[in-house]
């Protein structure tokens, strides 16, 4: 059953989580990864989720992207109750609404960079077929990889692969970008470049939710949520850096 709703929700939050619990059945004692998370994110926000390994930050972003399901609670994104969607509707919804960026890039190794970007458009039937290639090239221009379009991912550096993954995440022009440790596998210079790219996207009204354990990165986002033991224990709002 498709429950994809029209943009915007009554209180203006693009993303709303209420009492989200996630309990993993590990075989012996259940492990509660999220303990009743409440969260609102508005359009154009750049939100960082910070926490130590095992704190629940990746579980939280997986709830937002619909990659994982909450044990209980509500997740409404852009008016769509994500927690109620089945796998198929979730996949289509995700393809159009959220661009996902992974720590290990997760580009498909047998497709070229350009084809990796074309794939989400193909899956979600976005854009006219002739427009897809132009759009893929535009996105590659934006991430400064146009000259690498026909190469296989293995031929690219880590930073280039992550930029390609960001371009792929933007393929269907989703309002939200969810990134799990996007700079965790990159050197500081490349990480900085990727972060800069995110900041430019936010300027273009994209909403970005980024998981990181890097305090420097956390200090650069506009809103930082500190997660520990499955709970948001602290929230800080920063002023944007000059020139960002």
């Amino acid at each position: 059953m498709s429950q994809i709703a029209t943009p915007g929700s009554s209180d203006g939050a693009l993303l709303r989580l209420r009492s989200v619990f996630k309990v993993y059945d590990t075989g012996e004692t259940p492990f509660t990864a999220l303990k009743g998370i409440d969260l609102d994110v508005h359009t154009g926000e750049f939100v960082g989720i910070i926490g130590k390994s095992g704190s629940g930050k990746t579980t939280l972003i997986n709830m937002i992207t619909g990659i994982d399901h909450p044990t209980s609670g509500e997740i409404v994104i852009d008016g769509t109750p994500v927690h109620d969607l089945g796998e198929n509707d979730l996949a289509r919804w995700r393809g159009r609404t959220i661009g996902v960026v992974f720590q290990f890039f997760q580009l498909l190794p047998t497709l070229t960079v350009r084809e990796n970007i074309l794939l989400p458009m193909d899956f979600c039937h976005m854009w006219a077929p002739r427009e897809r290639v132009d759009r893929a090239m535009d996105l590659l221009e934006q991430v400064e990889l146009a000259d690498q379009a026909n190469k296989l991912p293995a031929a690219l550096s880590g930073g280039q692969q992550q930029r390609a993954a960001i371009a792929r995440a933007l393929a269907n022009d989703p309002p939200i970008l969810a990134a799990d440790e996007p700079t965790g596998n990159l050197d500081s210079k490349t990480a900085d470049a990727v972060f800069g790219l995110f900041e430019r996207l936010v300027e273009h009204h994209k909403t970005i939710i980024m998981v990181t354990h890097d305090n420097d990165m956390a200090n650069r986002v506009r809103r930082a949520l500190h997660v520990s033991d499955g709970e948001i224990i602290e929230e800080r709002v920063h002023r944007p850096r000059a020139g960002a």
Partner: protein
Amino acid sequence: MHAVRWKKVFRDLASHRFRTVLVVLSIATGIFAVGVVMGGRAILLREFDSEFAASVPLNADFYTMPFSDPIVRRAREYPGVAEAMGRHSASLRYRWAGADAPRTLSLVAIKDYDDVTVQRIVPETVRSWPPKRGEIVLERAALQVGKYEIGDTLEVETRTGEKKILTVSGFAHDINAVPAQFVGSETGYVSFESLPDIGEAKSYNELLVAMTGTSLTQREASLLAENIKRDVLEENGITVLGVYVPKPGSHFLGDIFKAVSLLLLALGLLSLLLSGFLVVNTVSALMAQQIKQVGIMKAIGGRASQVTWMYLGMVAIYGVLAVLVGVPASAWAGQQFIEFAAGVLNFRVSSYVPPDWVTTLEVGVGLVVPLLAAIVPIRLGTRTSVVKALTQTGVDSAAFGHGLVDRVLGLLRGLPRPVALSLRNTFLRKGRLLLTLTTLSLASAVVMSVFSVQASINQTTDDLEDWWRYEAQVRYERQTDQAGTERIIKGTPGVTEVESWVGTTVTLDRPDGTTAEGLNLIGTPYDTTFIHPTMLAGRWLQVGDEDAVVVNTDARKSEPSLDLGQRVTVEVAGEKRVLRVVGVVKGQFGGSALYMNREALTVLLPESGITQTLIKMSFTDTASQRRALDEIETRLDDANYRVVSTRTTAQFREQIASELGILVAFLVIMAVLLAAVGVIGLTGTMTINVIESTREIGVMRAIGAQHGSIYQIFITEGLAVGFMAWLIGAAAAYPMSYGLVSLLSGAIGLPLSYHFSLTGVGSWLGIIAAISVLASVAPAFRASQVSVRDAIAYE
């Protein structure tokens, strides 16, 4: 535009060439096995049946005193007769430069070879056809026992003892002639003009009749044969010496064919099952390997249905490639197989093209089975949650440790760590292990069963040998003087003891009113020490038995009324006699036989004298036995005793072994084929296990594991799987081989002595160990060549 996702499918196929080749080979092996076995069976039956039908098989064969064309015409005009023809047949001894000892020639003379209406003969390689005067065309099965060539001369001994020369002028095929390797005599065709030259009368002595009606029963054929005998032959003063009425439409090799056909069917179904397992196994492994990519595609918007179609497409491409490889390969191997079968069973093949249903089945195995087999693993794969798919690192660490086996393995102490790791790895992917084990265990069970069937056949021939307590046998043309022949034979060097038997053919009155002609009634001393009968029921002959007969299993199979305790009426030398069946003995491949006390039978016969002499010799080697037998034949010949055939027991055993050897040869071919399916299955599983473990291999190497340790881990894992398959297969082989032996016994009408081959079980353990090592070494080598960095980064 769906091009991108299909591009991924094609790129995956192209970039994982090794895996593609392996999967395609796995499916192709299944197609190959099914194609060769099922196709072979279908072509075998089709070609044999069509050639047999085209030859116009006879429904009644009358052996008579001489007659001429008017009798043939009368027979042709007789109601119910489709075709009739007369010919002259004789059994003569001959010498040929290619053989040390004299051999027997089943001679056939036909007046007009262009007008053969029953049991047609097809000239193959001939210098002249029909054979000219002084020439002989041999039935091509002679080439199976000797290197006969056109131009060879055969020195034929006439009935009067004269030596005459016939020159081989070619080879012909007669599907109705019993192949030389089965009877120890060659069939040859000569012109009518040659008959006087070799001391034979230029007249017919055999009337062959083909009857009308496609659904003729044996009873109807027997009744019509009796009428022809009476109205056409006896009424015209022609004495009938014997009548043979075969089961309509059945060939003398029909039992062997039935057995081979049943075996092929059983093994064909097994190969179909094995192919199915192989495909399920391979596709499951493929999906396990692709699970992370499935997760990525779903994470970027791919729906389960879209991803499912991609993988079904991939499997369909594997299937198409496998069909392209497997169908021609099976056609080629099938042709080799049919050529072998046609050579051994002596029939001609006009077309090697399998019937459409076989090709459909092959395409089904190649395309439909993989797709059906792929549905479950693909659905499982595409339904895996994105988070699970993305976090899976090749092997689910939570998958091990919960089951009983896991806990037992966890408790094992004192094993070297790599061995313990291998054993635990073996049970890590339980679903795949189950599929691999099923495939390999089934293949193992079949191979070990084949060993046992072979052992049972050998045991049967050994048991047969136990029956014979003599080294040689001489048969005479007619009843002969006992004292005279025994004196000559006893006087030959090497002979230690002789015993004379008397034999005659009798007619049995069946309960349905028809008669069975040509049953052998053999008179033997009740206390004979020359045979050791294997009693299956009742008792052997006793002193004073006058109306008691012991029947063999061949007789009981062809005439069910010959059962223990039954009183049966037989016609012996024109007189009806009631005999009592007191025992059943195992048959000896010598055809139907009824045994009674020699003295009791002699009383029933109008003439005195014996028909065969059994000889014990001091020689243990077959060459000396053969030489002594030749000497006996020469001496009997010199004394004007007409010998119709001689044979050593060793020679007869070889003939039986060659007949049963056909079954063994077919079984071995099929076992090798099924073993190949099992081996490909194990190799595929091990390869995919290793590919899947690439990351683990990287980790192990990163923490100090050298090549040797990696090899040890995977080889031990392969050996563990091989050992388990051997163990399960050995347990399954017992009932399976018992079933196969029973099936064969029923088909050939001889109770085979069941023998479970422990040697076979032991041999297969060695073979499967070698296979397991080989199946693991190549993938482990491949994995060990990957750098640690690449291995750890492996997706």
